């Protein structure tokens, strides 16, 4: 008995009922929980930015650039958990070179890189182009070099050129909205199309993933906006914050409705997998689903934000409430991903038993590794705020 299998022997002793012998170890672990979480933040932050740009919600203007940069910072990190999870990470290029078109996962190679990355880069470029040209003239040294390169050799900032920037930025955002939906919708489809697993196989899966992505993205931008202004000791635009919270409230309602519909439907139809799934929810997923995802992540924010629509306490109090609500929403959505990915593998496809999951601290799929992938995007974002400070931009009205 070599030590490399010790954790499997332990898991074997914790099996309840019957599982297929190959199901003892969960194939998709915390890194695969992280990937939909991160891409959800990307898509959600982008949708918030597009709310201002395309749907003309002027109150959100202060967060437009922050949302774009947040989306970009997280997008840069998004593939990392995936690549680190692969059994053969150095073969990851195969997904781009010989994608199997019947596989939803292969579509990722194109949706991720060619669509949303291009959209995000272009939108940020069109918005920042004027400033890049100006900053490249004003600054010195390393920064100057970067601005020059990023301006792509286009130095025309005449009013006509700026009008083109505006038009093109608008067009790209419009094209970008479906791409944001696709990026996260396909992740939901990856799970929703697995007929072998009844916890995943539902038409609602891409839709649930999408709306929970929007919830998490909006909450993230709200939290970053509050913290950023606190660090910079700036006065926060309360109208903007109230508007973000309002949209967060609406999207949580829709997300909650979609998830409830899925469960009610499951409960009502009570088909073959119903018994084992009920045991799953009331047993192994009791804390992560009923308490963390539903109660803490959805019901408490719903009640809080709902009350705040009618009764608005002082600014300071509202800010703290928004901050706390944003954080528990983010935690709740993380647990939603956990419950889908881990929960779906805890019960056997024989519908006769459960295996167990133990998250290790170290190791390639451990807690520390997962934390790194959650912390790095914030470091990248800090770097982006330093390199492309949104508050130093010459504000252009859209």
């Amino acid at each position, binding site marked *: 008995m070599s030590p490399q299998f010790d954790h499997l022997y332990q898991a074997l002793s914790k099996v309840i009922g019957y599982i297929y012998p190959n199901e003892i170890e969960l194939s998709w672990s915390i890194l695969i929980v992280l990937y939909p979480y991160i891409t959800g933040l990307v898509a959600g932050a982008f949708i918030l930015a597009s709310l201002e740009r395309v749907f003309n919600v002027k109150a959100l203007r202060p967060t437009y650039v922050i949302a774009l940069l947040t989306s970009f910072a997280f997008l840069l990190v998004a593939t990392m958990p995936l690549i680190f999870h692969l059994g053969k990470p150095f073969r990851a290029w195969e997904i781009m*070179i010989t994608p199997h078109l019947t596989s939803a996962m292969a579509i990722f190679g194109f949706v991720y890189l060619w669509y949303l990355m291009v959209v995000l880069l272009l939108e940020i470029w069109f918005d920042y*182009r004027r400033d890049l040209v100006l900053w490249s003239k004003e600054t010195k040294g390393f920064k100057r070099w970067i601005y020059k390169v990023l301006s792509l050799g*286009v130095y025309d900032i005449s009013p006509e050129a700026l009008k*083109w920037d505006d038009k093109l930025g608008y067009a790209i955002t419009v094209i970008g909205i479906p791409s944001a939906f696709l990026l996260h919708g396909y992740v939901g489809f990856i799970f929703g199309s697995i007929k072998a697993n009844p916890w995943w196989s539902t038409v609602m899966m891409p839709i649930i993933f999408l709306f929970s992505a929007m919830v998490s993205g909006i909450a993230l931008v709200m939290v970053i906006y509050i913290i950023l202004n606190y660090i910079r000791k700036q006065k926060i635009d309360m109208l903007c914050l109230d508007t973000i919270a309002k949209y967060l409230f609406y999207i949580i309602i829709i997300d909650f409705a979609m998830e409830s519909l899925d469960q009610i439907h499951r409960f009502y139809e009570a088909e073959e997998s119903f018994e084992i799934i009920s045991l799953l929810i009331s047993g192994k997923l009791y804390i992560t689903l009923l308490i963390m995802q539903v109660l803490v992540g959805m019901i408490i924010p719903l009640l809080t934000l709902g009350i705040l629509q009618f009764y608005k306490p002082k600014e300071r109090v509202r800010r703290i409430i928004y901050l706390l609500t944003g954080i528990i929403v983010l935690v709740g959505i993380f647990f939603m991903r956990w419950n889908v990915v881990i929960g779906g593998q805890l019960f056997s496809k024989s519908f006769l038993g459960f295996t167990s999951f133990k998250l290790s601290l170290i190791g390639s799929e451990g807690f520390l590794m997962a934390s790194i992938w959650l912390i790095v995007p914030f470091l990248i974002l800090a770097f982006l705020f330093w390199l492309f400070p949104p508050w130093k931009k010459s504000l252009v009205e859209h």
Partner: protein
Amino acid sequence: MPSQIKRLLVLGVIIVSLFLLLKFLMTPVSFGQFGHYRGLALDEIAAHPVKYIGSKTCIKCHDTIVTMKNEGYHSDIECENCHGPAYKHNKTPKKVKLFKPDSREFCAKCHSVNLARPEKAITQQKINKHHPGKKCITCHNPHEP
């Protein structure tokens, strides 16, 4: 056309061409031969060594005992089922000998009473009660049961 679009188009064309070039260079040679997979994989999998060589090879040297087995109740059982894979023994018969099972547990794997065993399929004995302690092969010749 504004200079931004011109610059972006040029950049776009360069990047797409680079990608297409990479795709052409990195796709494995036999890919797509029979379907969306490497055709060479079929040969690679087929090259795996065969370990259980079959009693038709055993009989070439051990003709008496294999013939005796083939005439009794154990006729349907391959030699290697009890004695293990013979590919090494076939190559170097003097150096590598095969396992000769003789424990009660070995025979019990098939012949012990288990309600799930169809009675038509195999004779079953309550091995705890049937001459406990004695080796089965003391009375039963495994090649002529």
